[in-house]
C-alpha cells in the first residue's frame, strides 16, 4: 500500500498533520525504539486519512453501539444515499423483507439441517445475525426499506463461507458456539447452538492487548471500556469527529488488538466485501458519491489489494459448497445476544438505555420499519390471521428526503485524544431513583434490604466512581455498589442482586416474529391452534382445557398438539391430562402451551418442511430408513405413524421396512420391544373393520420363523442374554396361534427346541428351554419338578439353584405353566439355601423381578395365593403341598378329592361304561391300556414297585455307612 503523498493529503477536508506530529513526538518521548512506535502511530493516522480519501463514504460502526446508530440516523437524514453496502452475509439479504412484521431484537438465520461438505459432527449448521433497533445496521435497513429507489446490498461472505473458513475439524465448531447458558437464564439460549456473526465486531481478540487496555482503564469488560472511553465521547459529537474517532480506534484495534488467525479471516472478508461493492456499483451504475459503505471500524485499516475504489482489483470469490441453505428470522433477546458474543450480562440493555436517552436529548426521529399490515388497536404482531383484521395496504415507500446541508465540522480528533472524556450528563436524579428501586426489588426477592441499604448503595456508587476516575457513577458502578451493599453470603430467592440490577436497568427484551414473516409451517400451526381458548402469542405458559364432548371441533387441535409434542422440545407443549394410545378415544385433555415463549423452536421446525405432517413423515421415514436402523426402530416409526398421522400408506411403507429389517436382525436384543409393539398393533387392528394389514401378518410370520430359526444358536451362544431368549419365545408363543393360522408350521419350532436341547448349558437358559419343552409337551411339569428336587437335594448343585430360578422367572413371560413350580422352588430356595448364598442372591433377585413386574409377578402372586394359607389360623396346621406329597404314602392320598360329578357327567360316564367299545378303541389307538375304573383315581406312576436294584444299593449303604459318612463330611 502506497503512502499518501502531500498532494493527496491536501485533498482532505481536514489536515491530520498536527495529530501526526504529536503522535510522532510522543513516540520519540516515551519509546526506546521511537522508529517502531512512530511507524505504528503514523500508520494509524495514515489509515484515517485513507478512509477519508475514499470516494465512497465509509461509515464505521461498532456492534450494538448506540452512538453508531444515532450518527447513522443523522447521516441518512442529512445526506440520503442511493445505495448502501453493508457488512452482512450476502445470502441473508432476501430475508430482510420479513423484518416488517417483526419486533426487534430478532436474528437473521441461515440453516442447513445436514451437509456432506462439512464435518458430520457440525450438523445441523446454523448461523445467526442478531439485529437490535438501536444498531446502525437496523437504521440503515429501515431507511432502505422505507425509502424508494434505495438499494441495499449485503456484501460480506455467505453463511457457507463462514463455515468453509473454519478449521474443518469436528471440534472446531464448539469454539465458535457459546456454552449452554444457566438453566435459569432461559432466554439466553434462544439462538440454540448457532454460530453468531455481528456487524462491526470490535472486541480485541489479542489477549495481551485486551488485558492491558482493560487494566489501565480499570474496567472489567470491553463493553465497559467502550462505553467509558468511546461511547460517551462521541455520542453527542458531530459526524466528522465520530468518523475520525472510529477510524482511529478501528485502526488501532486492527493493528494491535487482533490475533493473527482473526486478521487472516478479516482480510478474506475484506477482499470479498470490496469485490462485491465494485461489482454492485458497476451493475447499478450508482455514483460512489451517492453510496455508503457500512462496516466495522477495524476494516478501514485493511491492507488487502482490493481495498478502495481507486483500483479495479477483484477477488475470485471461492465457490460455495452445494449445501442447501434455508433462511429465516428467529426471535432473539438481549440476553441471547450478550451470551452469544460473550458480552457481560446487561450490556445490550445498557446500550438501549443510552440510545433512548440520546434520541430524547437530540430530538432525533430514528428510522423504523413499518409493519406490512396493521391489526386491531392494541393487537400485537404474531397473531394468527383469524384474529387479525382486514389487511391494510403496506405504507408507500417515501422518496429520499432532501439533503440537509451540514456545516463542515472542525477537527475534533485531536481534542478527543488530548482531553478527558467529556462530563456525562448529570444523572443524579436517576441514580437516586435506582438506589431506591433496587432496594424495593431486593425486598421483593427475599432480601432483608432497607432504606439504609439504598443510602449505602448511593454512597458506595459515588465512592466507586471516584476511585475509578469517573465523574459520575456508570451503571456498572451502580451495579457493583448494589452488590456490595445488599448481597450477603447467600441468595435468598431466584435472582441475585446483579440480576436484579439488570432488571432494574432495563431488563431483558425478547423479540417476536410476526405472522407474515413466519415460515409456512409455523403459520399453519398458529392458524390451526387458533380455536384453542388461549393466547398463543403470550410469553407465559398458557393452560388449555379441551373437552371434546362439548367441543368436538377441538379434536384437530389435540391432534396437532400431540404431533408438536412429538416433534418439539418437551417444554413447548406439555400434556397435563390425556394420553395418546392406539384405539384410545379422548374425552378431555389439558395442555400447557408455551409456543409464545418458544417461537424459535416452531420456526426452526419450519426449516424441515411445509407442514407439521410433512416434517413428521420425514422424521419417521428418516428413523426407519436410516442405514443403522433396526427392526424395532422401523416398527416404532410405523406405530407412531399410525398414532399421529393415521396414514395407512405410510404405515404400510414403514411396516414393510420393519419386516425387511426383522429378517436381517443379527440378534434378539430388541425382541422384547418388538413383541410389545407387535402385540399392541395386532390388538388394535383386530378391533378394526379391515382387520390385520398384510404387512403386519407378514411381520408375525416372519418373526415366528426368524426367531424359531435363531433359537438353537441363542441357547448355545453365551452372548445372547437369557432375557432376550425369553423375549423371542414370548413372541413365538403369544403370537403362535396367529402365526399358525397364517401358514407357519409348529414343526419348525419343535425342531428348533429339540436342536437346542443338547447345546444349552447355562442354567437360566436350561430352565427356559425346559419351560418351552413343557409348553410343547416335550416334557411334563412333574418331570421338571423331580429334576429341580434333585438339584436342591444335592449340595454340589444347590448353589446353581438361583440361576435356574432366574430362567424360570423369565419363562413366566411366555408360559404360566411353570408358575406353580416357580413358587415351589422359590420357597425351597428360601428354606434351604444357606445364608452365604441366599443373601447375595436376594438383591439380584429383586433387580431381576423388577422389569418383569407386569408379566411374572401376577402369575407368581396368583400361584402363591393358591398354595399358602390365607390367614394366621390356617398356618398352624399348614404343610406345603410339595411336603405333603413327600410325607404321604402315595400321591393318591394327597391329591385333592375329585369334585363330585354332576348329573350330566354321571350320565356320560354311565353311557361310556355301558358302551365301552369306542373308548377302548380310542385308548388302543393312543397306545394306552384299556382299563376301566368304576370310581377313584387311576393308578399313579409313583405307585409302581420300586426298583429292586435301588433297594439292594440302599441296603448295602445302610449296612456299610462309613463311605457315605465320609462323603458327607467332605461336603461339609
Amino acid at each position: 500500500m502506497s503512502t499518501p503523498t502531500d498532494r493527496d493529503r491536501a485533498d482532505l477536508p481536514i489536515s491530520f498533520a498536527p495529530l501526526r506530529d504529536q503522535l510522532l513526538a510522543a513516540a520519540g518521548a516515551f519509546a526506546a525504539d521511537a522508529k517502531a512506535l512512530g511507524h505504528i502511530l503514523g500508520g494509524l493516522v495514515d489509515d484515517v486519512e485513507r478512509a477519508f480519501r475514499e470516494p465512497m463514504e465509509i461509515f464505521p460502526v461498532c456492534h450494538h453501539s448506540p452512538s453508531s446508530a444515532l450518527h447513522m440516523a443523522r447521516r441518512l437524514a442529512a445526506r440520503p444515499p442511493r445505495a448502501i453496502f453493508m457488512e452482512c452475509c450476502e445470502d441473508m439479504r432476501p430475508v430482510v423483507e420479513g423484518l416488517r412484521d417483526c419486533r426487534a431484537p430478532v436474528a437473521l438465520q441461515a440453516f442447513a439441517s445436514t451437509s456432506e461438505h462439512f464435518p458430520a459432527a457440525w450438523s445441523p449448521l446454523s448461523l445467526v445475525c442478531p439485529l437490535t433497533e438501536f444498531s446502525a445496521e437496523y437504521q440503515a435497513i429501515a431507511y432502505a426499506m422505507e425509502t424508494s429507489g434505495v438499494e441495499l446490498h449485503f456484501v460480506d461472505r455467505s453463511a457457507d463461507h463462514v463455515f468453509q473458513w473454519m478449521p474443518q475439524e469436528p471440534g472446531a465448531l464448539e469454539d465458535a458456539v457459546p456454552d449452554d447458558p444457566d438453566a435459569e437464564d432461559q432466554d439466553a439460549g434462544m439462538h440454540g447452538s448457532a454460530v453468531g456473526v455481528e456487524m462491526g465486531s470490535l472486541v480485541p481478540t489479542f489477549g495481551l492487548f485486551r488485558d492491558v487496555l482493560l487494566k489501565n482503564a480499570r474496567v472489567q469488560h470491553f463493553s465497559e471500556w467502550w462505553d467509558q472511553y468511546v461511547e460517551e465521547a462521541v455520542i453527542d459529537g458531530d459526524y466528522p469527529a465520530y468518523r475520525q474517532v472510529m477510524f482511529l480506534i478501528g485502526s488501532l484495534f486492527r493493528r494491535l488488538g487482533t490475533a493473527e488467525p482473526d486478521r487472516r479471516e478479516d482480510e478474506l472478508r475484506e477482499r470479498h466485501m470490496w469485490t462485491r461493492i465494485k461489482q454492485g456499483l458497476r451493475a447499478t451504475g450508482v455514483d460512489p458519491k451517492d453510496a455508503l459503505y457500512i462496516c466495522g471500524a477495524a476494516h478501514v485499516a485493511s491492507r488487502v489489494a482490493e481495498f478502495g475504489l481507486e483500483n479495479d482489483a477483484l477477488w475470485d470469490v471461492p465457490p460455495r459448497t452445494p449445501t442447501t441453505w434455508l433462511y429465516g428470522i428467529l426471535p432473539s433477546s438481549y440476553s441471547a445476544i450478550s451470551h452469544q458474543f460473550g458480552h457481560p450480562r446487561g450490556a445490550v440493555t445498557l446500550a438501549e438505555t443510552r440510545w433512548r436517552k440520546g434520541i430524547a436529548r437530540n430530538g432525533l426521529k430514528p428510522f423504523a420499519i413499518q409493519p406490512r399490515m396493521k391489526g386491531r388497536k392494541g393487537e400485537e404482531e404474531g397473531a394468527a390471521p383469524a384474529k387479525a383484521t382486514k389487511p391494510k395496504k403496506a405504507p408507500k415507500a417515501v422518496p429520499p428526503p432532501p439533503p440537509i446541508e451540514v456545516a463542515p465540522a472542525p477537527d475534533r480528533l485531536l481534542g478527543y485524544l488530548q482531553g478527558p472524556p467529556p462530563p456525562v450528563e448529570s444523572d443524579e436524579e436517576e441514580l437516586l431513583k435506582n438506589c431506591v428501586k433496587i432496594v424495593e426489588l431486593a425486598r421483593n426477592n427475599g432480601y432483608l434490604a432497607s432504606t439504609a441499604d439504598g443510602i449505602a448503595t448511593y454512597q458506595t456508587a459515588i465512592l466507586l466512581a471516584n476511585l475509578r476516575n469517573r465523574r459520575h457513577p456508570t451503571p456498572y458502578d451502580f451495579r457493583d455498589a448494589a452488590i456490595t451493599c445488599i448481597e450477603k453470603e447467600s441468595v435468598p430467592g431466584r435472582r441475585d442482586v446483579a440480576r436484579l440490577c439488570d432488571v432494574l436497568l432495563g431488563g431483558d427484551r425478547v423479540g417476536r416474529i410476526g405472522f407474515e414473516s413466519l415460515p409456512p409451517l409455523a403459520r399453519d400451526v398458529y392458524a390451526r391452534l387458533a380455536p384453542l381458548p388461549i393466547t398463543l402469542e403470550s410469553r407465559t405458559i398458557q393452560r388449555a382445557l379441551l373437552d371434546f364432548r362439548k367441543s368436538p371441533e377441538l379434536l384437530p387441535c389435540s391432534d396437532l398438539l400431540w404431533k408438536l409434542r412429538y416433534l418439539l422440545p418437551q417444554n413447548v407443549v406439555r400434556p397435563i391430562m390425556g394420553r395418546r394410545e392406539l384405539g384410545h378415544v379422548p374425552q378431555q385433555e389439558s395442555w400447557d402451551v408455551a409456543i409464545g415463549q418458544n417461537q424459535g423452536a416452531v420456526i426452526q421446525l419450519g426449516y424441515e418442511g411445509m407442514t407439521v405432517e410433512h416434517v413428521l413423515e420425514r422424521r419417521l421415514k428418516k428413523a426407519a430408513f436410516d442405514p443403522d436402523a433396526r427392526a424395532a426402530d422401523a416398527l416404532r416409526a410405523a406405530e407412531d405413524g399410525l398414532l399421529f398421522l393415521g396414514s395407512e400408506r405410510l404405515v404400510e411403507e414403514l411396516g414393510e421396512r420393519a419386516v425387511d429389517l426383522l429378517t436381517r436382525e443379527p440378534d434378539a436384543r430388541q425382541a422384547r420391544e418388538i413383541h410389545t409393539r407387535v402385540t399392541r398393533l395386532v390388538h388394535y387392528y383386530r378391533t378394526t373393520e379391515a382387520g390385520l394389514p398384510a404387512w403386519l401378518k407378514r411381520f408375525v410370520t416372519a418373526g415366528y420363523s426368524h426367531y424359531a430359526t435363531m433359537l438353537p444358536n441363542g441357547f448355545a451362544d453365551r452372548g445372547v442374554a437369557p432375557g432376550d431368549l425369553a423375549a423371542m419365545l414370548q413372541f413365538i408363543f403369544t403370537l403362535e396361534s396367529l402365526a399358525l393360522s397364517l401358514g407357519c408350521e409348529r414343526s419348525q419350532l419343535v425342531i428348533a427346541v429339540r436342536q437346542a436341547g443338547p447345546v444349552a448349558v447355562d442354567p437360566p437358559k436350561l430352565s427356559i428351554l425346559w419351560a418351552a419343552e413343557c409348553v410343547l409337551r416335550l416334557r411334563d411339569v412333574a418331570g421338571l419338578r423331580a429334576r429341580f428336587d434333585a438339584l436342591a437335594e444335592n449340595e454340589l448343585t444347590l448353589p446353581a439353584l438361583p440361576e435356574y430360578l432366574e430362567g424360570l422367572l423369565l419363562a413366566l413371560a411366555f408360559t404360566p405353566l411353570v408358575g406353580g413350580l416357580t413358587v415351589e422352588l422359590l420357597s425351597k430356595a428360601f428354606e434351604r439355601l444357606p445364608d452365604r448364598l441366599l443373601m447375595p442372591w436376594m438383591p439380584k433377585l429383586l433387580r431381576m423381578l423388577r422389569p418383569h413386574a407386569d408379566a411374572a409377578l401376577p402369575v407368581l402372586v396368583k400361584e402363591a395365593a393358591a398354595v399358602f394359607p390365607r390367614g394366621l389360623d390356617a398356618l398352624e396346621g399348614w404343610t406345603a403341598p410339595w411336603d405333603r406329597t413327600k410325607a404321604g404314602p402315595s400321591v393318591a392320598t394327597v391329591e385333592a378329592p375329585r369334585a363330585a360329578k354332576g348329573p350330566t357327567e354321571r350320565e356320560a360316564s354311565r353311557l361310556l361304561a355301558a358302551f365301552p367299545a369306542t373308548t377302548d378303541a380310542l385308548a388302543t389307538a393312543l397306545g394306552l391300556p384299556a382299563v376301566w375304573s368304576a370310581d377313584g383315581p387311576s393308578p399313579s406312576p409313583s405307585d409302581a414297585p420300586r426298583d429292586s436294584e435301588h433297594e439292594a444299593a440302599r441296603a448295602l449303604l445302610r449296612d456299610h455307612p462309613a463311605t457315605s459318612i465320609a462323603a458327607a463330611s467332605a461336603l461339609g
Partner: protein
Amino acid sequence: MARAKSGGAEGAVATQADPGEVLRAPAEVKYAEELEWLRSIDGDARPASWRLSPRLVRVFVLGSSPSDRLEREIRPKFFGDPGTVERAIVTLASDRGLLLIGDPGTGKSWLAELMAAAICGDSTRVVQGTAGTTEDHIKYSWNVAMVIAAGQSRESLIPSPIMTAMQGGLMGRFEELTRCSSDVQDALISILSEKYIAIPELKGDDVVFARPGFNVIATANARDRGVNDLSSALKRRFNFVQIPVVTNKKTEREIVLFRTKELLARNRFEVETPPALLDILLQTFADLREASASQTSEDDRLESALSTAEQIGVLEDAVLHGRFFGDGSLAPGALAKSLVGTLVRRIPEDVSILNKFWHAAVAKRAKKDGGAWEAFEAAGKDALEGMK
C-alpha cells in the same frame, strides 16, 4: 516487638519494628518505605483520618499501572479481581463495616492486613475469633489487681484491640468472625452503629467514642457457614465482599511465587523455583480441584480446600526440605512428598482418594509429558505407599 505511638496530623498510630527482629513483620512495617513514599505524593482527597487516598490504597494493594503515572513501580501484593478490592476499599470509606468472606486460603486476612496498613498504618488491632471469644475481647476487660487496689477507673481498664482502634480512628480487624458465638458477635452491633462503647462500671467518662476513620474489617470462612450465623442486625451493618478461589493459572502462579519468596525470606535465603516444577504443582492442584468438583459425595473428596495458600505451603515445605535435607535445590520428589503430606489429613480416606488420583491423573501426565513429572509421580507413589 517495639512499638511507638506518634500522633500524626490525622491522629494515626504508626507501628515501627525492625523487620529483621521479628519473625513476621506486619505489612505497615514491611512496606513502610513504600507507604511513606505513596503518602508523600498523594495529592487526592482522603476520607477522615486515612493516611492514603482510596486511589493510592488501591495502588498499594493491587500494584501500579502506567496509567497511574507514578514515578516508581509499586508491586502488587494481592492478586485477584480489582473490582473486589475496589469494593472493599470504598466500603471502608463508608459507614459500614467490611466482611471478607471466602474459602480458607483465599487471602482474606492478607487483604485485610494490607488495607489496614495502607489506610491507617496499623494492621495489628486484631481480635481473633474463636469458640472461646467473649464480649470482653471485643470491648474491654479489667486489670483485676488494679481494680482491687484502686477500684474501677480508666487506668484499670484494658481496652480491646477494637476499642483501641476506635480511640485512634484506626481499622480494627476481626478474624474468623463466624467462629464466635452469635451473642458475642452481636457486641459489634453497637460498635458499628453508634460508634461508641459504653462502660457502665465507670461513673462519668463512661463512654469511649470512635474517632473519624474507624471501621472494622472482619473475615469469615465460607466453610463455616451455618455454624454461627450472623444475626440479621449484624449482617445489615456489614458489606459482604466475596473473595473467590483463584482458578486462573497465571494469577495463581504469581501468588504462589510472591508468597513463597516472602516466606522464605524469613529464613534469609532464596531458592529458585524451576518453572517446570511450579507448573507441575499448579497443574496437580488444578486437576485435584477438577476431580473434587466431579465427585458427588463428600466422602470422595479430600478434606483440604485445595486453596492457593496450600500450594504455597507445599512449595515452601519442599524448598525447606531441599535446603536442609537435600542438595539445596527444589526437587520433584520433595515436591510430591510435601504435597502428599499436606493434603492427607484423614487416614485412610484421603490416602485412598489421593492414590486413585495419582494413578489416574498424575500417572497419565507422567506418561505423556515425562521429565520432572516422572520423578514427581514416583515420589508421590512412594509417599502414599508409606501411609497405607
